């Protein structure tokens, strides 16, 4: 049991919290909008994944290694889709700053229904499922070595460490959902930090998250988990969607 | 005024007589004595001095000097440069000759014949570059063939006889064609102005060239190019080179690959000037470019699989012939680069064949795979050989790199990018295969029976000197040389 194994959960949690601070949950632009943009968000999460995978390798059990290997594979293959989705958003907003993107979409409500936007949303949605360990990529409820990815890495943790890791996972899901919600349909996001606006924003966020959660829940009830080597195909589909969204946003500019 | 005349005369005599006298001495003194060899070597210093005097005279912008009945001899800057090349190479050769200070496996009679013929060879080369009439130039060049052919078979080995026969037949045919070309040039002249005594003197030809018939001149130049090209070893007339260089005694090989080659190029250049004056378009350039590319290609791919380091050197000199042809075909800048390359190549090659000879003497074979572990067996010889080969491969800091660079710049400036690109690719092939062969020779373990240590210690010194010259030419372009080359360019591309 080495220092890295003990240190990893804290770091994972810290990065996720930092990411949460950067994401416009209820208000945009946030005071520290300039500290990190969308790319930073993505790469901070990757940092978390990086350490989680290392922590999975450390116990030296087959489970941990398996989980780490699968997790990194999925994360790596998901990267391009995320990057392209960001590209698509950046093309619209002329910036990768989250505040900027939100503001841009707010100021052009019509942009919400242009094909680039919708395709980008679909792509990022699939990636969300992959990154946050939902079905059909991973099954958070399982402990069967054939199926688990995220759980396999956290298998040797207990107590506060496990708590931090799971909490971080939850936060990650929240972040992805709110990114989906506020970047693509930013209605209700507070642009001024007045109590009224914030209240509306909170309600709007809850509604959107509920909707997304419902969608995910429906999907998880409808479909079974994919074989690991079908996952790249799924992500390939999302990549194509993202590429289409970018190119269309080029051609339609 | 008189004694000025006298001094000029002295210069020509100083240039030509020593080699003649040496030949005479070698003939008269029988059996051979080492003293003769030394004496001839020292005598050759005189002609070197004379050549340098010509060069400095030309470099200081002096008029072309003429001498003899019907202006038999003439020395402008171009001749001066060649004189220096030939004289320097032959001095080096005579000092490094067998039977001069060093023990040798030649017999007395052979040594005598060697001294006689090599001096006659040198004499005819010097005559060729200092002759005023293109016909005399031709006579002298033909003479070089004869003497060198006899020298190649100095040791009556099967291979040497074979090489000599091939050499003399191919180059006699070639040189005969050159004579036909000369006749055609003269024919053009006669058709223009009727017969005249000194009509074959180069300045006279050049003067009348603009009025000559381009069609006839084209034919003449083709004959001349094929003819002298055979002597220079331009592909596809190069086939005698590997045999002759491989079988000739090292000093002769060195002298042939450095000086004789240069003289043949000189002859081509002389005629090119006349032809260009007569033919208005770039006909000669295109011929030179085409043959240059052919030489490069054939040489490059022949080096790849060559198993014998002497023949490898021969092919590399075919390659450099190709490069120089390129240069001559690339206008003023190209000619400058080509002549610089000629000087560098002369310096490098005259070393390489001596080194190759020493290596062969050491290992008793000129096969590449028979001569491993050179650096262990003979560090100095091996090191020098490696340096020389790298220089021939066109690596800095040696002169050939600079001249090749200048050459390619000229090529690009002349808007032949694709031609130059192809040439570069071929050079790459040459480079890689040369380095590969070199590696095979330098490293590994020498066969047990090979005695470690230099063949002859002091021989290293003059070669080191030559190498230093090469490096110096790589680092700077001496002002006199530059002015000389510029004057030549002015003569050539008028």
């Amino acid at each position, binding site marked *: 049991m080495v220092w890295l194994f003990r240190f990893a959960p804290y770091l994972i949690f810290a990065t996720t919290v930092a990411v949460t601070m950067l994401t416009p949950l209820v208000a945009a632009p946030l005071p520290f909008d300039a500290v990190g943009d969308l790319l930073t968000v993505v790469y901070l999460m990757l940092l978390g994944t990086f350490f989680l995978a290392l922590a999975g390798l450390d116990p*030296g059990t087959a489970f941990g290694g398996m989980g780490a*290997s699968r997790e*990194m594979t999925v994360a790596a*293959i998901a990267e391009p889709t995320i*990057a392209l989705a960001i590209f698509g958003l950046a093309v619209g907003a002329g910036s990768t700053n989250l505040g900027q993107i939100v503001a841009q979409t707010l100021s052009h409500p019509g942009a919400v229904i242009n094909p680039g936007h919708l395709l980008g949303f679909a792509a990022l949605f699939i990636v969300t499922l992959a990154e946050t360990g939902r079905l059909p990529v991973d099954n958070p409820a399982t402990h069967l070595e054939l199926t688990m990815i995220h759980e396999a890495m956290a298998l040797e943790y207990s107590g506060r460490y496990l708590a931090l890791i799971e909490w971080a996972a939850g936060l990650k899901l929240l972040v992805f959902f709110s990114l989906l919600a506020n970047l693509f349909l930013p209605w209700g996001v507070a642009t001024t930090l007045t109590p009224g606006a914030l209240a509306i924003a909170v309600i709007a966020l809850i509604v959107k998250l509920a909707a997304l959660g419902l969608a995910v829940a429906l999907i998880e009830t409808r479909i079974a988990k994919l074989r690991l080597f079908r996952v790249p195909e799924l992500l390939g589909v999302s990549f194509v969607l993202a590429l289409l969204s970018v190119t269309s946003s080029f051609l339609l500019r | 005024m008189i004694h000025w005349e006298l001094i000029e005369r002295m210069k020509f005599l100083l240039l030509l007589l020593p080699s003649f006298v040496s030949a005479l001495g070698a003939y008269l003194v029988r059996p051979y004595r080492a003293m003769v060899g030394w004496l001839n070597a020292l005598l050759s210093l005189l002609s070197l001095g004379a050549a340098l005097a010509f060069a400095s005279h030309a470099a200081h912008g002096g008029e072309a000097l003429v001498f003899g009945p019907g202006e038999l001899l003439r020395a402008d800057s171009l001749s001066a440069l060649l004189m220096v090349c030939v004289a320097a190479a032959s001095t080096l050769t005579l000092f490094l000759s067998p039977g001069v200070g060093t023990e040798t496996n030649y017999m007395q009679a052979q040594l005598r014949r060697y001294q006689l013929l090599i001096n006659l060879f040198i004499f005819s080369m010097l005559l060729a570059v200092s002759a005023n009439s293109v016909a005399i130039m031709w006579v002298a060049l033909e003479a070089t063939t004869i003497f060198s052919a006899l020298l190649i078979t100095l040791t009556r080995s099967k291979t040497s006889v074979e090489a000599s026969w091939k050499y003399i037949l191919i180059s006699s045919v070639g040189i005969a064609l050159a004579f036909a070309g000369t006749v055609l040039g003269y024919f053009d002249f006669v058709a223009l102005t009727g017969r005249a005594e000194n009509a074959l003197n180069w300045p006279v030809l050049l003067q009348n060239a603009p009025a000559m018939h381009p069609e006839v001149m084209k034919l003449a130049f083709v004959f001349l190019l094929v003819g002298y090209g055979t002597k220079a070893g331009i592909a*596809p007339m190069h*086939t005698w080179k590997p045999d002759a260089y491989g079988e000739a005694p090292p000093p002769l090989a060195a002298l042939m690959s450095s000086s004789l080659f240069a003289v043949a190029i000189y002859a081509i250049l002389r005629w090119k000037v006349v032809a260009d004056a007569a033919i208005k378009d770039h006909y000669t350039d295109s*011929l030179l*470019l085409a043959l240059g590319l052919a030489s490069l290609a054939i040489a490059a791919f022949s080096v790849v699989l060559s198993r014998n380091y002497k023949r490898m050197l021969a092919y590399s000199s075919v390659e450099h012939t190709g490069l120089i042809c390129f240069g001559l075909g690339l206008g003023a800048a190209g000619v400058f680069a080509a002549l610089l390359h000629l000087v560098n190549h002369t310096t490098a090659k005259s070393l390489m064949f001596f080194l190759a000879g020493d290596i062969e003497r050491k290992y008793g074979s000129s096969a590449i795979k028979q001569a491993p572990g050179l650096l262990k067996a003979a560090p100095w010889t091996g090191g020098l050989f490696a340096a020389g080969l790298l220089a021939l491969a066109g690596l800095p800091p040696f002169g050939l790199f600079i001249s090749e660079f200048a050459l390619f710049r000229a090529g690009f400036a002349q808007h032949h990018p*694709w031609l130059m690109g192809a040439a570069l690719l071929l050079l790459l092939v040459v480079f890689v295969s040369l380095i590969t062969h070199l590696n095979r020779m330098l490293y590994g373990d020498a066969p047990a029976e090979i005695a470690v240590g230099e063949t002859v210690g002091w021989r290293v010194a003059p070669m080191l000197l030559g190498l230093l010259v090469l490096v110096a030419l790589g680092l700077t372009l001496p002002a006199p040389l530059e002015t000389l080359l510029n004057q030549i360019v002015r003569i050539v591309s008028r």
Partner: protein
Amino acid sequence: MRLNAAALSSGSRNVIFVLALFGFGSKAGIVPLHVWLPMAHPVAPSHVSALMSGVVIKMGIYGLVRVTLDLLGGGPVWWGGVVLGAGALSALLGVLYALMEHDLKRLLAYHSVENIGIILIGIGSGLIFHSYGLTSLAALGFIGGLYHTLNHASFKGLLFLGAGSVLHATHTRNMEEMGGLIKRMPVTALCFLIGAIAISGLPPLNGFVSEWLVFQSLLGGFNIPKPEVAVMMPIAVGMLALTSGLAAACFVKAFGITFLAIPRSREAEQASEAPLSMRVGMAILALACIALGLAPFIVVPALGRVLAGLGGLPDTHPAFTLELSLATPGSASSVSPALLAVGSLITLGLILLALRVLRANRKLRVGDSWGCGRIGQTPRMEYTATSFAEPLRRVFAELYRPTKELTIDFHPGSKYFVQSIEYKSEITPWFEKYVYEPCLWLVRLLAANVRRLQSGSLHLYLVYVAIALVILLLSARWCGSFASRRI
């Protein structure tokens, strides 16, 4: 020389560019001229290979920028396109081959190929923007490329030194025989970890900043008027993103298998920390990685000044503030690794504080790891580097074309007792097989045929002379000259 270059025709400029790309590219080790790199770097002593990949291959980058941007002053769009394509290809293939390597130093060498690719992506996009006159975006691309050059020098040097001290401790380069070294050599492990994070392009270290800059320059791609050109940019973005993701995976493998878990060999068990000199060297480079990561607001303007004036680039560089923000047409984004790091550290502190305040149970119970009820754990049960890379090997099987051979020999008595299982799998070296061998084959073929010319028959030689004579005579009569025709 610049003046000469200005006078050149487009044809010769193109040739010069292509030749320069080949020459400097082979020095820098871009695909497909990279094959020498993973052979040369590992065999050198580690500090030398650190120097090689840190400095030597950068000469290629230097030369490329010097020639294309400075001497030739930029060129047509396809120059940038070629550089960008070569870069993207090198990046992706470099990391993909690195994933399959279990020789620590070969792995690092392949990562040099990858990073050179990233650098070239930056430079290529810069060239493209430059040819469209979008100078500030061009500057961004070049700055990204050069910044990554600096970074690669620091973290690759660090990683090679780390590999060196591991080598020194375990006397093997094979990762499968390492493991658990983090206990034996903590300093090396920490430094290697920092290097790994940096090279994976994760915040807040230097790799992240330069890759971020490259990303930003690519994101500016929609300013390119021609859609067919502009579409290259998102594709490059995708490849770059995939590259960085795979790099992260690869370094999880490299660090995890080498330093974590249980030692897989006796050497690894008895490994000892590297000597002080090496530790100091690594520490310095690690600090460099951190500094270059946290202080881009110092480095970037410096690079901007370096580039100013080359190929008519103005002295445009992102604003000089604590956060590195960009005010370029199309992309006005900002990031501040420093604040980011500070923020994360503060949150980390807060968490610990919270745990302290809440009097969380600080008793730590260390149990045996779970292995489906097996008795004891041995190294043989660990995940190996091969198995770690297996999923990706399958995903990219098209590229690797892995060869498998499985030999099982049974107990002579009964075939139900397996005596030994031998599994061998290799990936096909694609470029050696499909690019270089054909070239060599061609040269050999030509050589063999040219060789035949020198057949030894005098008559044949004379035939050559005669043929040359006749052909030239005919040309003299009936052909014009091609030298007068200019290409």
